[in-house]
């Protein structure tokens, strides 16, 4: 059986950290999470990492593998160069808790700040609605999100400029969430003013880094952020629509 070296980020109780090399056996079909588990079971029982499903469905095992934000459970070893050590480190945009585990709680605080779903009155007497499949395809794309927060991790507005902490920027994951609500055929709420003023959609300069890392292949920028930006622009900056709105009220 072949061996490979995993260079895993370990932290000390004082918060400092360093890479530690672990050699472990590797076999066909293995993913990075298997290697981390094998290190845990045989060499470092206190190694901290998050995972749940090991099937790319829960979004728990996000990490940076050789510098690339990825799910550990969906990164097969045969896609990596095993002649060199494979580096495995936590998502760097979030504060460290221990080893590969980070404090992602900010994401759970952002969501309730976005106005919740508010459906129109039911279409039928039995309290149900009618929607055509073609009208929900886009929303279903957004609802594939597994909340892995890799897009938040890679977005420079979050990672480098910390605008999610000091200026309310909700980041790509929650722009997708807001887009799913705004484009939901039943929703009656209006979030455009919030998107502009409190959710700070303007900070996004469409670098598309978020789209590149999304394990669910959601077209975050093209399908969610750009259409939202367009709606904001036409509401608040387009002189003609603004005039119409003034006349109407």
């Amino acid at each position, binding site marked *: 059986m072949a061996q490979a070296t995993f260079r895993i980020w370990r932290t000390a109780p004082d918060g400092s950290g360093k890479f530690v090399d672990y050699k472990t056996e590797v076999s066909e079909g293995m993913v990075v999470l298997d290697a981390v588990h094998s290190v845990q*079971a045989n060499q470092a029982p*206190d190694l901290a990492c998050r995972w749940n499903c090991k099937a790319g469905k*829960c979004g728990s095992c996000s990490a940076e593998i050789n510098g690339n934000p990825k799910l550990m459970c969906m990164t097969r070893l045969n896609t990596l160069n095993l002649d060199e050590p494979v580096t495995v480190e936590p998502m760097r945009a979030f504060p460290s808790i221990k080893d590969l585990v980070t404090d992602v709680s900010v994401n759970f605080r952002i969501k309730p700040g976005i106005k919740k779903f508010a459906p129109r009155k039911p279409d039928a007497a039995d309290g149900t609605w009618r929607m055509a499949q073609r009208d929900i395809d886009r929303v279903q794309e957004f609802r594939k999100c597994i909340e892995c927060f890799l897009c938040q991790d890679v977005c420079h507005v979050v990672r480098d400029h910390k605008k999610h902490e000091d200026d309310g920027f909700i980041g790509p994951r929650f722009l997708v969430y807001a887009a799913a609500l705004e484009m939901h055929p039943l929703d009656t709420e209006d979030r455009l003013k919030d998107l502009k003023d409190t959710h700070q959609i303007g900070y996004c300069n469409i670098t598309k880094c978020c789209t590149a890392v999304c394990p669910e292949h959601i077209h975050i920028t093209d399908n969610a952020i750009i259409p939202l930006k367009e709606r904001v622009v036409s509401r608040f900056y387009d002189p003609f629509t603004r005039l119409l709105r003034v006349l109407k009220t």
Partner: protein
Amino acid sequence: MATANSFSYDVLVIGAGGAGLRAAIEAAGKGVSVGLICKSLLGKAHTVMAEGGMAAAMANVDDRDNWKVHFADTMRGGQYVNNWRMAELHAKEAPDRVRELEAWGAVFDRTPDGKILQRNFGGHRYPRLAHVGDRTGLELIRTLQDHTVYLGVKVHMEFTVIDLIVDNGRIAGALAYDRERGRFHVFSAKAVILATGGVGRAFRITSNSWEGTGDGHALAYRAGAQLIDMEFVQFHPTGMVWPPSVKGLLVTEGVRGEGGVLRNSEGRRFMFDDIPDNYKPQTASDPEEGWRYTQGDKSARRPPELLTRDHVARCINREVKAGRGTPHGGVYLDIAWIKEKLPNAAEHIKRKLPSMYHQFKELADLDITKEPMEIGPTTHYIMGGIRVNADSQESTIPGLFAAGECAAGINGANRLGGNSLSDLIVFGKRAGEYAAEFAKTHAAAAISDAAVNDGMKVALAPFDRSGAAENPYKVQSDLQDTMQDLVGIVRIEQEMQEALTRLAALNERASRAGVEGHREYHAGWHTCLDLRNLLAVSEAIARSAIERKESRGGHFRDDYPDKDPAFATFNVGTERASDGSMKVTRIPIPEMPAELKQVIEEQKQ
């Protein structure tokens, strides 16, 4: 001694899968204070993995469907040892619970006339599963989660409950530790709802996430509650068998619902060779009829691939044992063949089964639109669990409720696919409602310091045993082998007795398992604490399975291969005796009311 923080709620919900979230929503809506505890981050619970859909007789696709048919299907699937009252409530209430999800933002796939689309699934007479592609669990959990976060429910994420605290026979609260720091927390509550999911991790090959360590089952058992039906474990017929690192990972039944067929290494569709008599009238007589059924032809009957899971799993087992298996010890599941029938078959498959396409492509380098998959049985679900009152979901301990997979009754000897997600929302709601009611009419019970101190001491013991201690991962792994090999899909007395002997030895080893280091996010320590839960549920499964000397549903005994009517009259119960040993009892099944009997008769043709 480690000190503990304390919290106090009217209703404490343990578990944030579909059942726990639905319960929390309901209780919060009743105006009581609600705390919610989960081992992982919010939205990551095992429910997120569910694929195929949730069963509810809405009759959107076939107007012949109604609660009576769903009830009869559930009872037939469960081989009539179900709690018939739960099966009745479930069949009647599931449609409303599903529609309510839509009002909370769920976006199900649609019928051409714009209603919620429903798909075929094993054991369901008509297309009944509301779904979103093959990621229905994600849709369910996200909808409930996104609804909950606006309700003021306090969520304690990455907290693990290690003991329930009981005062004079009544629930008083729970003791937990948090992963991040390893500190202890005491929760006092007037009512507690267990919604902790399943036990799949007691077996080597499983579709369950790491959380499935039977915590709720074991917590309730240790607190003195009764468990029932623990011998009924569901082995799902189609798990991945290759590569080894994903062995057990689920391949949704939806593949067969969309026309996928099972073949052995000789290319034979072996499921046609063994159709049980009571399913013959509903099963297709040839492949052509089966295909038409999957394509929505109402005059056609279902293909034998969609017979109940226990039966399909055993047929696969038999093929493999007879030497007709695939190179990696499974059989073939082929959906690619439908290209003979449909133009654009590849696109169709990708649209209907996106995550299966993804899963095989990324984890096995296999394109399911071109090649057959290799699959074999995997431990999937436990029908058994905490014994509850059908209407209120209250356990045998006053103030302690249970819902979802950790509760028992609705499924009897075998669960139909899709009946779990609907179970979560039907009985999650009921548990929330009745727990809130209980909290409003009862004062909080006392939490004894002694109980808390004992609990903390036991929990910290692994740190005192470092050095020559047992490796907890090794003990867990040996436990999984024991259950897989000796109490698995085909059982016999002698092997199960052997399992009990080994479990006793493992118990002893677990009591010597130890770790070093700090308490912060210490996976090895967590594993030590999981062991006692896994051991308790494993023992309950083995003892119950020994008690049921017949074959029924998920429980198959080589030494008693037939169903025995004498065993149709009771459920097997397990509870803790005063000396700490496990007591096995037979709990008679109450007589079914005449109206329900009639429903079953009417649906038999």
